């Protein structure tokens, strides 16, 4: 057992876990942040994507100990109170989900994509960049629409700040 100290969604936490514990299990089982999903558990599907120190990573392929001292953002940390993050709002408005299982990972990857590419996103880039996230319902079409829509909204939001 080790004590892992990290910041999750802006809150400093200290958790006692077995050394073999994966970050995703620390989030879900110790912190009850069950928005982050385990899909494939083989780093293929992306349902477990969270941000660690500002970068999208697969939390099923990272030990909790590796995240010690880091800043982690999960899907629960995106909205400002009742106000959805522009990416969440765009997924809802564009019907970018059906069953919703992949959605938290999709949204965390999508926010990372917009952060990295800024306003230079086009459809081809979004499709290419989303290849680490698998959705079995939507055929991706509305997901791509949502990401492009959100990229515009995030640019506007950034300009307003």
């Amino acid at each position, binding site marked *: 057992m*080790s004590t892992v100290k990290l910041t999750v969604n802006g809150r400093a936490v200290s958790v006692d876990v*077995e*050394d*073999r514990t*994966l970050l995703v299990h620390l989030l879900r089982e110790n912190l009850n942040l069950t928005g982050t999903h385990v899909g494939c*558990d*083989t*780093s*293929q599907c*992306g349902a477990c*994507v969270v941000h660690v120190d500002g*970068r*999208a*990573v*697969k939390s099923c*392929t*990272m*030990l909790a*100990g*590796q995240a*010690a001292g880091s800043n982690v953002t999960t899907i629960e940390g995106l909205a400002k109170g009742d106000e959805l993050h522009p990416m969440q709002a765009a997924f809802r408005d564009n019907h970018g989900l059906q069953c919703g299982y992949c959605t938290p990972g999709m949204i965390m*990857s999508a926010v*990372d*994509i917009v952060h*990295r590419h800024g306003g230079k996103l086009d459809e081809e880039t979004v499709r290419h*960049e989303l*290849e*680490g*996230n698998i959705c079995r319902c939507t055929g991706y079409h509305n997901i791509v629409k949502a990401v492009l829509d959100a990229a515009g909204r995030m640019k506007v939001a950034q300009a307003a700040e």
Partner: protein
Amino acid sequence: MYETTYHRASSIDDAVAQFAKGTESRFLSGGQTLLPVMKQRLASPSDVIDVAKIKDMIGIEVSGDTVTIKAATTHYDVAQSDAVQKAIPALANLASMIGDPAVRHRGTIGGSLANNDPAADYPAAVLALGATVKTNKRSIAAEDFFKGLFTTALEDGEMITAVSFPVPAKAGYAKMRHPASRFALTGVFVAKTKSGDVRVAATGASQSGVMRVAPIEQALKANWAASALDSVTIAASGLLADIHGSADYRANLVKVMGQRAVTAAG
């Protein structure tokens, strides 16, 4: 996953010392291969020594005609590096094609090389560019580093600290990506050195891991052009064959990826 004990190393010396204390230690960098392999119970290290936060293990330096990438530098950072894009654009391009964005945010060059997966991308660049693998003990020439599937010249407890690439006159990389894993079904890295030598390496092709491709090297030495490979035949003997592609298919891929790599190199 079997039980293991996690250690975060504070320095290269500390990592080596921690490694020596475990009964069956493994160095852990990005963990994008080691952790999945541990989940599959194909590896069960008593101790994992996390080297990814060691400051001396992260960063990229260009000095004269050499690009040195420290071992725990992520694929994302290599792909994004202005210095690498300028000095060896093919290397930045190769890094940008590994896995997917989340994998590239964690995976590292040292981890990839130490693992030496027969379908990994970096070994092709290291061998074709004639890079030098630096460890906590010594410098190892690319020729002497790769020893077959998942096997390298690294001794127990020896750790890669950096890789030095000589800047080539021209270089290019092309791969047929496996659509699910994004490993190279076959990938070919072509390089023309500043002294005019041509070195070509293929990954994902040989049963013995990354290999030089003499017929392509000879053809490109005579004429640096994709069309120079039109008449080249790659022997299928010794090449990988699996549900994704036969040995004959891979032999043809070596040639076609070689042509695309030359085109990319310009």
